[in-house]
């Protein structure tokens, strides 16, 4: 239950912030809403058990990118201008955007995702197989089964310490090449940004 409440809260923050971004007339206010939305997304990551990512989200998006955006706004436009914020295709854009969310929602709901949530599911499957029952996600689930595989005081099946260790290993192991490429991209982008903005 508490998870549902938490989910509702962070969703509200994330989506509310996002709506604020597009609804605000003043671009400066938009940027402030954006910060709120980023924080909400960080909450979503935390709920999903990706702690490191949540922290990264706060540091990079809330800390760095938002500040960058605010700077750009200050440097380029009349902050207090109250002229029309949207262009003439706003109505068409609204139709397209709402169709996209509707279509994606329907698709996400209708598709039978191969969900394997945490240790519990595995244990249930193994036991069900041993008992000769149907194997699959539809196997009956009991609270004790779920608790059996969980570390004490941790209900979502994610070992928090290992999470970061594994992420580090993955980044510098099997994903090493992408890691280096993205580092290079970042470096080039920053040099490029300096060159472009300077003259």
């Amino acid at each position, binding site marked *: 239950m508490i998870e549902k409440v938490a989910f509702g809260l962070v969703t509200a923050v994330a989506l509310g912030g996002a709506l604020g971004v597009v609804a605000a007339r003043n671009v400066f206010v938009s940027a402030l809403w954006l910060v709120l939305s980023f924080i909400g997304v960080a909450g979503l990551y935390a709920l999903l*058990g990706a702690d490191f990512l949540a922290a990264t*989200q706060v540091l990079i998006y809330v800390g760095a990118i938002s500040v960058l955006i605010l700077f750009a706004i200050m440097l380029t436009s009349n902050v207090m201008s109250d002229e029309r914020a949207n262009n003439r295709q706003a109505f068409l854009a609204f139709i397209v955007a709402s169709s996209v969310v509707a279509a994606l929602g329907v698709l996400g709901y209708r598709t039978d995702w191969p*969900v394997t949530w945490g240790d519990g599911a595995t244990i249930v499957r193994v036991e069900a197989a041993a008992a000769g029952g149907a194997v699959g996600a539809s196997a009956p689930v009991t609270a004790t089964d779920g608790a059996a595989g969980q570390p004490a005081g941790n209900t979502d099946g994610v070992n928090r310490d290992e999470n970061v260790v594994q992420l580090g290993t993955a980044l510098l192991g099997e994903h090493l090449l992408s890691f280096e490429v993205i580092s290079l991209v970042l470096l080039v982008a920053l040099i490029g940004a300096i060159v472009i903005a300077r003259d």
Partner: protein
Amino acid sequence: MTPTIALWWYLLVAAALFSIGLFGALSRRNAVGVLMGIELMLNGANVNAVAFWRYTGPSSGGGLTGMDGQVFAIMVIALAAAEAAVGLALIISIYRSQQTVLLEDFTSLHG
């Protein structure tokens, strides 16, 4: 143990974030506003990746092993940072020469 919140809810939130961002990117006159919309879209995609990692990742066999979803998200964050830096630099550069950041004034691609 089944998840308290079905995967679909996360997907819906991600889709909503994406679409709101899309609307922003399509409708804002201010270039910085468009950039913010794009950041929202990237966030939506990221939520999607992490949700799928959590729900359908190769978690069978004790603990989560594959970290592809999170690695994806980190790459996207890094790319977003790069994109923001370059994008804002471009905007500042254009503002210097054109004295405007309104996208409808930039029509030099007009055929």
